[in-house]
C-alpha cells in the first residue's frame, strides 16, 4: 500500500544557522487494510510524516511509493485522486463554505442531505443543526475536528491519514472518537494511519510504530508493542518521581 523509503527531511534553523534534521532515513510500510498508529514524543517527526504522505511537504531525500507507484513528486491533488486522504490536526475555517459543501467536496459528488447526515451523526453531531452551518469562527475547535473526521469518512480513501485526531476533542467526544475509528475500520476497506498519543487509540491498532528524534525506533504488532510502551511510560513516571525525591 504505502512505503516510505529512506526519507530524510531537513529545514533551515535560524538558531543553529544551519540545517536541522527533522526526519532521518525513515523507512516505513503501511500494508493493505492495516490500522497503524504512529506514536512517540512531541517534536519527534510524526506530523511531518503525515503531511509528507499527503504531499503537503516534500522530503529532502527518499521516495514514497503508493501501491507500487512512485508518488514522491506528485501534487496533493494527484495524491488525493489516487486515494490518499488527510485529516488536519488543526482544521481549517472557511468563510462562506458550509459543512454540507465540504462533505460534498470530500465525497467528490453530490450528496443528499440524508447521506451527509449519516456522516455527521457518526461523529456525534446532530446533523440537521450542522449541515447548513458555515465553517467559520462560529464553530468550536471540537466541532471542527469532528467535521474534519466526517469529511474523511465521506472521502472513502484507500489510505486515510489522521494527524492527532484526539487533539482539541473533549472527553465525551473522545470516547466516541474511538468508536468512530472502529466503525471506520468496519466500513472502509482501506488502510488507516493515525498519529496519536492516546492509549485507547493505540489499543485498537493492528500495528504501532514509534518515532522519536526523526527516526523510527520500532515497528510491531499491537500485542508486541503495547507492553513495551507501557513499560516506557512507567519508567518515565518513575524517573520523574525519583527526580522529585532527589530535589
Amino acid at each position, binding site marked *: 500500500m504505502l512505503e516510505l523509503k529512506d526519507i530524510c527531511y531537513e529545514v533551515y534553523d535560524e538558531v543553529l544557522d544551519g540545517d536541522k534534521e527533522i526526519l532521518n532515513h525513515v523507512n516505513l510500510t503501511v500494508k493493505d487494510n492495516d490500522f497503524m498508529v504512529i506514536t512517540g514524543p512531541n517534536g519527534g517527526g510524526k506530523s511531518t510524516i503525515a503531511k509528507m504522505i499527503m504531499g*503537503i511537504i516534500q522530503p529532502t531525500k527518499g521516495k514514497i511509493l503508493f501501491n507500487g507507484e512512485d508518488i514522491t513528486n506528485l501534487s496533493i491533488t494527484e495524491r488525493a485522486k489516487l486515494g490518499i486522504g488527510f485529516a488536519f490536526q488543526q482544521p*481549517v475555517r*472557511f468563510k462562506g463554505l458550509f459543512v454540507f459543501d465540504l462533505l460534498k*467536496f470530500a465525497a*467528490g459528488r453530490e450528496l443528499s442531505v440524508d447521506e451527509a447526515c449519516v456522516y455527521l451523526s457518526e461523529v456525534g453531531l446532530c446533523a440537521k443543526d450542522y449541515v447548513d452551518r458555515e465553517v467559520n469562527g462560529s464553530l468550536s475547535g471540537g466541532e471542527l475536528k469532528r467535521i474534519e473526521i466526517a469529511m474523511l469518512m465521506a472521502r472513502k480513501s484507500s489510505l486515510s491519514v489522521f494527524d492527532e485526531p484526539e487533539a482539541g476533542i473533549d472527553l465525551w467526544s473522545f470516547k466516541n472518537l474511538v468508536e468512530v475509528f472502529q466503525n471506520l475500520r468496519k466500513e472502509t476497506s482501506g488502510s488507516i494511519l493515525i498519529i496519536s498519543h492516546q492509549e485507547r487509540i493505540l489499543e485498537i491498532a493492528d500495528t504501532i510504530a514509534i518515532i522519536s528524534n526523526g527516526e523510527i525506533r520500532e515497528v510491531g504488532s499491537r500485542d508486541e508493542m503495547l507492553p513495551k510502551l507501557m513499560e516506557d511510560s512507567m519508567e518515565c513516571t518513575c524517573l520523574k518521581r525519583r527526580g522529585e525525591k532527589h530535589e
Partner: protein
Amino acid sequence: MSNIIDQVADKVLEIVSGLKETPKGAFNIRVNGKGVKKSSSKNIQIVSKKDKEGIDIIVAPGTKGETVHIPVVLDHSGTQELVYNDFYIGEGSDVLIVAGCGIHNDGSHLTQHDGIHSFYLDENASVKYVEKHYGEGTGDGKNVLNPITNVHLKKGAFMELETVQIEGVDSTDRETNATLAEDSKLVVKEKLLTNGKQEAITRFNVDLDGENSSANVMSRSVAKGDSKQYFYSVINGNNKCAGHSECDAIIMDNGFVKAVPDVTANHVDASLIHEAAIGKIAGEQLIKLESLGLSEEEAEARIVEGFLR
C-alpha cells in the same frame, strides 16, 4: 422567442432580476433609456416623473408581502442615462424591492447607467432592497454603473440593502447615504468581485441620529487580476446607538484593495465597531480542498464562490 423584451434583453433581465416572464404586481422595466413596461398594483403605485427621468414608487401604508421589480437593461452600446427613482414606503408596510441593472455592450462606446435612488420609509415600515449589477458583451466599450442610494428611516423602520456585483462592470462608484431615526435599523450586505482592469468604489455614510438606532454594514469582496477596490465606510453615532461595519476582502493576482474605516461617536452611549480584513486565500484552505481532490484552480474558485455567496 422572447418572453419579456427580446432575447438579449431577456437574458440580462433574468441575470439581474431573476425574471423569466413579465412579473405580476407592481413593476417597471426600463430598457435603453426608456420605460418599456410598467404596472401598478392595488397597493403600490408606479408613477413616471414629469420633470426628469425616473419613477416614483408609492407603497400604501400597511402593504405586506408584495414584491416590486424595477430592472434596467442597456444593450445599445453608447447609451448613457441618469435616472431618479424615489420610493415612498407607507407606515407599517413590509415589501421586497428587486432592482438591478445589466449592460450588454457589443460596441465600442461607453455605456452607463447612474441611478439615484431615494428611500423614504415611514414609521415601522420594512423594506428589503436587492440590487444586482452585471455587465457582458463582446465590445471594448466600457460598462459603467454609478448608483447613489439615499435612505431615510423614520421611527422603527427597517431596511436591508443587498447589493451584488459579480461580473463585467468596468467601473462603479457606489454611494449609500443613510439617516436613521429612533429605533430604526439598517443592514447592508455588499458582495463584489472585480477582475481585469475593473475599478470599484464603495462609499457608505451612515448617520445614527435616533436613540436605539442601529446599522450593520457588511462588505465581502474579491479583487482579481489588476482590478482595484476602494471601501470607505463612515458611521456617525449621534445618539445612543449601535454601529458595525465590516469589510472582508480576498486579494488575488495583482489586485488592490483599500479599506478606510471611519467611525465617530458624538454621544457617550454610541457603540461603534469597525472591522477590516484583507488578505489572500489562506494557503491551508487551498491545501485542505486539494487534499479532497480539487485542483488549485478549482479550490480557489470554490473558496471565492462561497465567500461571495
